[in-house]
């Protein structure tokens, strides 16, 4: 496999990394060379008028050459006051990230990758075979924009099984290219420029990016170790009648936290009181280990104001198929469908047929999935504890967040670099999941969506080479 093909596409954030030796990341170096070449040669960028409309490109170029963080002046509420700032904000979120660079670094050093949020094993045969059959049966043309009817039905049936809620697959289900697109379509379809949206940090990076595309005003509430509980008082003082929506990811990437019934009830009553929408990202709902997963939509009075989003990828280890969906009452589904129709128009047809089969998998499939992941988790968590990390409890997802400070590195990024180069293991620096990077500087994220041998090897390497200071 060529190096470039291993490039992370599962992006996680945007601040440029202070690499000491850019030449170790050849792909990145090519990018920077071409940014500069493109900027100076192209008349498109030469005109002064145009340059003033592209502060983001300038910001990108300056960040590449000086390795400084152009967004260090971020506060919790990026205020969009006039057009140039809005442009800069929108495109500032869309720079190439350190993850591409780390990916390259990892390959160069032959590091074991426990950073990437996708499995190194494949999905179940019965789902793959269904996709193959669909291709052979000629299901290769445009699907209905909001989903293949059988698939919409299967989504509704699964939702009923999981939550008890009965929904109309024709009017309340929209199929999208992964949950990522469901989030983008929900933001663009339901959020007006200037609307306030509450986000919990740390967060999956596409949330902030798409909120910025929608022109939203982001209000961030930070979840803190050791249990990353929702700070209720802070929430109460942040939410108001001006809040348009709140975004909840449960089970939560990167911490593995699962929102408790108490937390969800409190958030629900605040939302009802202030007429706030809720957008939930529940892609890890089948990887719920320490407690039952609860969908916000199933709480009293909440279905009518909730968009529930999910996908195939994590549950069936087929992250590259890009099959996701959004479930919402008709008056919210409308906006989601409109935006979706202009973003991608339709979703991959054969994979929808396969996903229909997948969602009808017997209970035994999900039970075995959980058992397998719990075994993997045990290997990793025990290993990390033995090595000397402070490991925070993770109730769900296939992620675990740890405190790396016992090893004496100055911050999470420095630690991750050290871990790749000196130990040969990849983790993700969590500062990239926060609006204020300082909030994450003590924490890094490991994933256990890898086969057991890989996990054991990684633990061995760390035991051997990672020494406490």
């Amino acid at each position: 496999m060529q190096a470039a093909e291993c490039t992370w596409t599962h992006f996680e954030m945007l601040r440029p990394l202070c690499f000491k030796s850019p030449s170790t990341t050849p792909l990145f170096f090519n990018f920077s060379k071409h940014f500069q070449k493109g900027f100076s040669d192209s008349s498109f960028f030469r005109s002064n008028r145009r340059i003033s409309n592209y502060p983001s490109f300038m910001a990108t170029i300056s960040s590449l050459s000086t390795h400084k963080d152009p967004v260090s002046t971020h506060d919790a509420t990026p205020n969009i006051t006039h057009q140039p700032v809005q442009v800069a904000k929108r495109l500032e979120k869309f720079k190439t990230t350190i993850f591409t660079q780390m990916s390259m670094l990892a390959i160069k050093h032959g590091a074991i990758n426990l950073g990437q949020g996708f499995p190194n094993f494949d999905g179940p045969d019965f789902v793959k075979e269904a996709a193959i059959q669909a291709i052979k049966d000629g299901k290769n043309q445009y699907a209905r924009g909001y989903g293949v009817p059988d698939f919409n039905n299967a989504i509704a049936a699964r939702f009923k099984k999981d939550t008890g809620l009965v929904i109309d697959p024709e009017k309340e289900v929209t199929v999208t290219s992964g949950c990522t697109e469901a989030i983008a379509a929900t933001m663009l379809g339901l959020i007006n420029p200037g609307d306030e949206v509450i986000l919990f940090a740390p967060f999956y990076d596409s949330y902030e990016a798409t909120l910025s595309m929608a022109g939203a005003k982001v209000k961030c509430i930070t979840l803190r170790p050791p249990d990353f509980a929702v700070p209720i008082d802070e929430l109460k003082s942040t939410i108001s009648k001006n809040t348009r929506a709140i975004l909840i990811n449960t089970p939560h990437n990167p911490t593995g936290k699962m929102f408790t019934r108490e937390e969800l009830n409190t958030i629900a009553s605040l939302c009802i009181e202030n007429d706030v929408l809720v957008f939930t990202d529940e892609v890890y709902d089948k990887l719920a280990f320490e407690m039952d997963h609860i969908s916000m939509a199933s709480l009293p009075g909440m279905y009518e104001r909730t968009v529930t989003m999910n996908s195939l990828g994590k549950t069936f280890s087929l992250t590259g198929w890009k099959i996701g969906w959004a479930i919402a009452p008709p008056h919210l589904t409308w906006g989601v469908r409109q935006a979706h129709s202009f973003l991608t128009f339709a979703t991959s047809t054969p994979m929808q047929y396969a996903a229909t089969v997948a969602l009808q998998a017997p209970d035994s499939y999900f039970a075995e999935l959980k058992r397998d992941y719990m075994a993997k988790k045990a290997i990793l968590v025990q290993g990390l504890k033995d090595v000397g990390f402070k490991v925070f409890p993770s109730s769900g997802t296939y992620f675990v967040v740890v405190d790396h400070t016992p090893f004496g590195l100055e911050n999470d990024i420095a630690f991750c670099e050290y871990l790749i180069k000196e130990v040969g293991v990849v983790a993700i620096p969590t500062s990239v999941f926060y609006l204020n990077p300082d909030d994450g500087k003590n924490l890094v994220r490991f994933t256990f969506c890898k086969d057991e041998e890989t996990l054991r090897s990684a633990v061995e390497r760390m035991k051997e080479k990672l020494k406490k200071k």
Partner: protein
Amino acid sequence: MEGKLSSVAKNFTPSSIQELSQLAQKCNAINLAEGFPDFPAPPCIKEAAVSAINNDFNQYRRVQGICDQLALKMKKTHGLNVNPLTDIAICCGQSEAFAAAIFSIINQGDEVLLFDPCYETYEGCITLAGGIPVYVALEPPQWTLDPEKLMRSFTSRTKAIVLNSPHNPTGKVFSRDELEIIAEGCRRWDCVAITDEVYEYITYDNQKHETIAKLPGMQERTIITSSLSKTFSVTGWRIGWAIAPASAASAIQNIHIRITDSAPAPFQEAALTALRSPIEYFETLRGEYELKRDFCMKLLGSIGFRIQFKPQGSLFLFAELPKDCLLSDVEYVEELIKQAGVVVVPGRGFFHGNESCNYQKRYIRVAFCKSGATLNAAAQKFGELINAKACPKILY
């Protein structure tokens, strides 16, 4: 709760093409409306996809090989030098490539020029990004471009112009002279050209598709979007791309990653096989579609149409209703479904702007990307009507 819809979403209406398709399904009508094939995709490409699934190409990926192939094609076909490492973004179909291109370029209040008639989705994208669509009407019956009208449409707020060639719905292929005129406008007003070239391999009568990017001063200000869908009859696979100067391509890739993260992985693998198809594949494709085009023209001729503009490319015939026909396009289409059991698309959905132009309600679009069996079935239906002389409303 209605108030919770964004102002942009409230203005959107459902796709008329998709609604008609549903009516046609109800009546079991022969579908000459939607622009996708009802015949199978090429076997070797399907096999490549099956193979990819079996070989575990199922996680997030970005297949660099696609970019390498595209760069080779751009050089061979258009003489353009494209850097496969920096100038290409892989997206979920041309749809997403276009959306990401718009989001990468358009700020609130920017104007975007579009030729009228045009594919209905461009406007929605532009509006979603805060842009303002400005239409430049092509003049019937030959859909000619008026240079003065075009130049008058550029303002200091114009950021981009959208160029779809070969053109949906008319089948027009913009000539080199017309491309020069558009290029002149872009250079003079310092604008970006965003092209939709999905029908690039479907041209007729020895006409060749040319990309505006190869004109002087254009490569640095052009974003080309295209896809596998129409060339390889796999509209449901969602594999497309944008080719642009590095900074734009990078922005597009980064936006794509936030919208969908990755194009479907096994189909990216299959794209490698598709893009390596021998030249005979493309020649056969063109030849077969040309036969279908000719057949369709005869078909409409038999029920009284006088086709004034022969499609030079794309999968569509855009035909004006016979002069004696007093029905509007929508009325005609409904009659055709009910009496002939054939569905086509009323042309009005492709027109925008000036409501007083009568001709906007006088066109139908016929898709001929259909199997021989389908086209023959349509011919048979028409034949029955002609023989029975039963339907004055659709026979002229």
